[in-house]
């Protein structure tokens, strides 16, 4: 019974220490447990595979540095997947914290394809404030909303933008998003109106909310959190940061599950005693 009292007034900083160690350990000595690819991830990869080679795809990365560990692996793998299918990619970013980060990640991946040139095979249009208003405005003409791209070039002079007018120019929208504005607003303002096929890579915290969109086929595929990113990497046969992080996720989840159970047992024992 002394265990219950010791546990109940345990300083929470011990819990912090255990969580820190548990998450750190697999990063040093990986366990590499096998990962099963779930249907929403197959849908995501299949939607990109079904895009005709050489067509122009819209990729909106609506997140900021706070979601790097979950969404940057998705952005990398999806961008590499699109480039490997010889697609042209138009990138937009509706989060103020994101444009610098998105530009670095995409430029890094683009360097793996030496024959692809900025402005011909992919362009980063950067940030625009206004949330849903920007999405609706892009429906009337993307050039009107983004007169200049992220690097300061006049968008009208870019060859890739010559064949891009509005949403009808895209066979697919790949949306990587962390909250508002994000996947929900893209589905409401764009997918429903322009019947633009859409897939989404989202943070795990917002994934459950978008399962109804999967069931109603408003979304053709979805990557949910780091697990979704890792499965996508496995599906594409890549070894990215997400797959490496999954062992630490396993231990972290086990620890939290343990905390819930033990926490309640302790409080139950205490309630019975008092």
């Amino acid at each position: 019974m002394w265990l219950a009292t010791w546990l109940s007034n345990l300083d929470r900083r011990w819990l912090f220490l255990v969580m820190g160690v548990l998450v750190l350990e697999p990063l040093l000595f990986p366990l590499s447990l096998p990962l099963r690819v779930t249907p929403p991830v197959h849908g995501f990869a299949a939607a990109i595979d079904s895009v005709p080679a050489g067509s122009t795809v819209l990729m909106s990365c609506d997140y900021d540095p706070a979601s790097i560990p979950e969404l940057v692996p998705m952005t990398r793998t999806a961008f590499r997947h699109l480039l490997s299918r010889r697609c042209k990619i138009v990138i937009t970013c509706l989060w103020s914290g994101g444009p610098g980060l998105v530009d670095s990640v995409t430029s890094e991946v683009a360097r793996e394809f030496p024959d692809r040139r900025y402005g011909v095979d992919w362009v980063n249009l950067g940030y625009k404030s206004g949330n849903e208003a920007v999405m609706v405005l892009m429906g009337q003409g993307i050039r009107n909303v983004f007169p200049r791209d992220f690097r300061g070039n006049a968008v009208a002079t870019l060859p890739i933008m010559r064949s891009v007018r509005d949403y009808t120019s895209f066979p697919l929208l790949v949306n990587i998003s962390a909250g508002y504005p994000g996947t929900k607003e893209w589905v409401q303002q764009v997918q429903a109106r322009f019947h633009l096929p859409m897939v989404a890579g989202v943070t795990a915290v917002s994934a459950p909310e978008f399962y109804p969109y999967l069931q109603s086929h408003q979304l053709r595929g979805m990557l949910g959190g780091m697990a979704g990113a890792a499965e996508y990497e496995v599906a594409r046969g890549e070894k990215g940061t997400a797959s490496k992080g999954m062992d630490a996720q396993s231990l972290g989840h086990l620890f939290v599950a343990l905390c819930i159970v033990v926490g309640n047992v302790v409080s139950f024992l205490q309630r019975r005693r008092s």
Partner: protein
Amino acid sequence: MKREVPLFITGAIGLFMILSFFVPHHWVSVPADFLQACAVIVVAFGYVLGGANVLRVNLEGISRRERGWGYKIVLVVSLLGTVAIGIADGLRHNGSFPVEGTPSKWIYDNLYATMSGTMFALLAFFIASAAFRAFRIRTFDAGLLAVAALIVMLGRVPVGDVATSWLPEWLRLGTLQQWIMDVPQNASKRAILIGAALGVMATGLRVILGIERSYLGGED
């Protein structure tokens, strides 16, 4: 005058935007686009005003020597520094910001990105302590929540499948988790989506018809 004109503007623009959803005709869609373009610009002014407000509040805090005014100096200096460097970089790169290799990008990568990422990382620790100390199953409903949370939490990571690989396929944690996500969770989330949509539509209607005047504030 101070209340009627804003209310009229909100009502007229709101109704016009709803009209533009149903009427694709160019006499309606072109002005509607113009209004949205205005909103994009005015919201940007709002963010600049927000920054100016932070500056004003903290400068007052410093002048009144409030508690912790030393830190407020750090805040004001870093704000003005970021703005000054931003203006210089923007002028040098004809308006594109933050450009690779410029001091602004250095600030973005090493200060902004690092700190906002780390702020979030604190949460992982708090999740553990909250799970232990604040996750109390006091009712049957909270019990349901806990069981669903445990199944989904363990089913979503490789260790869940590995641990229950000896069970038949449909009993494994991974499959259970998939079923919970596809059926019960989906039904309740859809009910909440519809409910929230009704709430937003009702509030939107009240704002447009001037019934909801809270954004104008109390007195004249």
